[in-house]
């Protein structure tokens, strides 16, 4: 186990919007950092090191670590940039964890952010793919997901309506979250009647584009309980990024990277029945169908059984395992921050600071990240210290 037991002790995020013209990128980052420091009753002097991440071509800023100093507070401090596409936020969180667990730093500030209003999001995402093989015939991120949804639905008999149930759940949950961007409920009919973007994905099946930032403080055992009365201790992380080319991906196999990552995580944390042993999940579900096939990948049910779980309300607030009390990615998607928001929201649940979106008595929470070429990251947080 880790050399230093490590916990999340403070979190902060912006009020997410489709566009924030009142702040530039640096100032947006600063908002999340300030809220995070306030949450932990900390000052910037308490912070030993900073980790930051986003995707360069969304804002067209090279070397964001050095550019962001005024917002991150990293003046004359160690700062490092990590980035892996959609999984950037979890990559940032995992880096924050390792820097503290290593014993090199006691309090590390981890920041994820994106100002998606500053570019054409689909054009920018398209640059993520191989310029020789993918980019010329690529059809944008939504189409890649649509291809996956199509394969899953055909193989397992799931329907567009089943997928819509996921969007309805997340949008309903978002009404409880004061930070969420889309805070209006939608019905199954609304989703089904929304414009088809890329068969079988419709407008209300997908995430919006968002300006937003998230900051989290990781602290060592020596400081964690002094800063936070109920810290969210890290019990395991895993990051699986096994593909280079979309064509190598096995479309029907329900996110193999997530199967690998969760299996490794459960083994590390001694979890045998995730549905029973985990109290809440914050999952990076960028579109509705992911809320079916990917929870199968997480071992919550067998292949093709996710629709039943959804319709039975198991993953709703008040259900056996609520998923995305924050409203998730379908309500807010500031890409570089998104996976860190999942970790942050999972920590908020463990800390009991969720307000209207709080799930009662959370001891164990799981957060996931998704991105790149169907890659997955997972993080497990608990209210109890790791042994």
């Amino acid at each position, binding site marked *: 186990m880790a050399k230093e037991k490590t916990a999340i002790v403070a979190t902060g995020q912006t009020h997410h919007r489709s566009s924030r013209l009142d702040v530039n990128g640096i100032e947006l980052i600063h908002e999340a950092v300030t809220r995070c420091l306030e949450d932990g009753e900390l000052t910037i002097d308490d912070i030993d090191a900073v980790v930051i991440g986003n995707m360069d071509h969304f804002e067209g800023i090279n070397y964001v670590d050095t550019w962001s100093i005024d917002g991150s507070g990293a003046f004359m401090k160690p700062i490092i940039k990590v980035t892996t596409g959609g999984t950037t936020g979890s990559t940032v969180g995992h880096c924050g964890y390792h820097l503290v667990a290593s014993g090199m730093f006691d309090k590390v500030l981890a920041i994820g952010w994106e100002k998606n209003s500053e570019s054409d999001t689909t054009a920018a995402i398209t640059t993520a793919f191989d310029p*020789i093989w993918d980019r010329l015939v690529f059809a944008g991120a939504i189409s890649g997901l649509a291809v996956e949804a199509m394969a899953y639905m055909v193989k397992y008999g799931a329907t567009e309506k089943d997928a819509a149930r996921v969007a309805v759940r997340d949008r309903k949950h978002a009404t409880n979250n004061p930070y969420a961007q889309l805070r209006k409920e939608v019905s199954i009919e609304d989703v089904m009647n929304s414009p088809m973007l890329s068969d079988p994905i419709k407008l209300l099946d997908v995430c919006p584009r968002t300006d937003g930032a998230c900051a989290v403080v990781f602290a060592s055992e020596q400081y964690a309980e002094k800063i936070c009365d109920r810290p969210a201790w890290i019990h395991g992380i895993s990051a699986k990024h096994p593909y280079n080319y979309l064509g190598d991906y096995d479309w029907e196999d329900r996110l193999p990277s997530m199967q690998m990552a969760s299996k490794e995580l459960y083994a590390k944390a001694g979890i045998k029945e995730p549905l029973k042993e985990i109290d809440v999940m914050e999952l990076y579900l960028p579109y509705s169908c992911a809320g079916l096939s990917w929870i199968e990948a997480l071992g919550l049910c067998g292949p093709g059984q996710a629709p039943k779980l959804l319709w039975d309300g198991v993953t709703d607030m008040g259900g056996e395992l609520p998923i995305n009390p924050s409203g998730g990615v379908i309500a807010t998607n500031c890409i570089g921050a998104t996976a860190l928001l999942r970790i942050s929201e999972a920590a908020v649940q463990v800390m009991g600071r969720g307000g209207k979106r709080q799930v009662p008595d959370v001891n164990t929470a799981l957060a996931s990240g998704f991105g790149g070429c169907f890659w997955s990251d997972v993080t497990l947080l608990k209210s109890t210290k790791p042994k």
Partner: protein
Amino acid sequence: MTNQGVDLLTINSGEAEQPFCYTVGLEGSKFLTEIRDNKRFVGIKCPKCGKVYVPPRKVCGPCFTEMTEWVPVKDEGYLHSYTILRFAFLDPETGKEKPVPYGYAFIRLDGADTDFQHYVEIKDEKKVKIGARVRAVFEEKRAGKITDVKHFVVID
């Protein structure tokens, strides 16, 4: 002085762009020149797991083994999965929108073990289904690019 009531300004990049001249590499060049010169697909085979990769590359990821054996791959295969894109977005290379709708597909070519990503013609949408047999249509003028293949068409 305060910030109250100020016009919120933005700065635009205008026509700015970054030029790149991407390296295709040895294996990729072989694949693209075969299409350009002979309208032929080739794959590369892993000596360890036997998997045939299209497009070819030097290393089999799951085996971490260097590949050197070239194998022929047919210009026909089946639709492994696909979607029909109905919303337009900016192409980052041109800064302009591609016309929609169009079919975007992952094609398992006969003889290959990975999918080849390309357009599928959607004149008859009913025929575009997972499992449908498709064949490559080549451009008359070919330049050593992936777009030397115009698209795939359903053949059964």
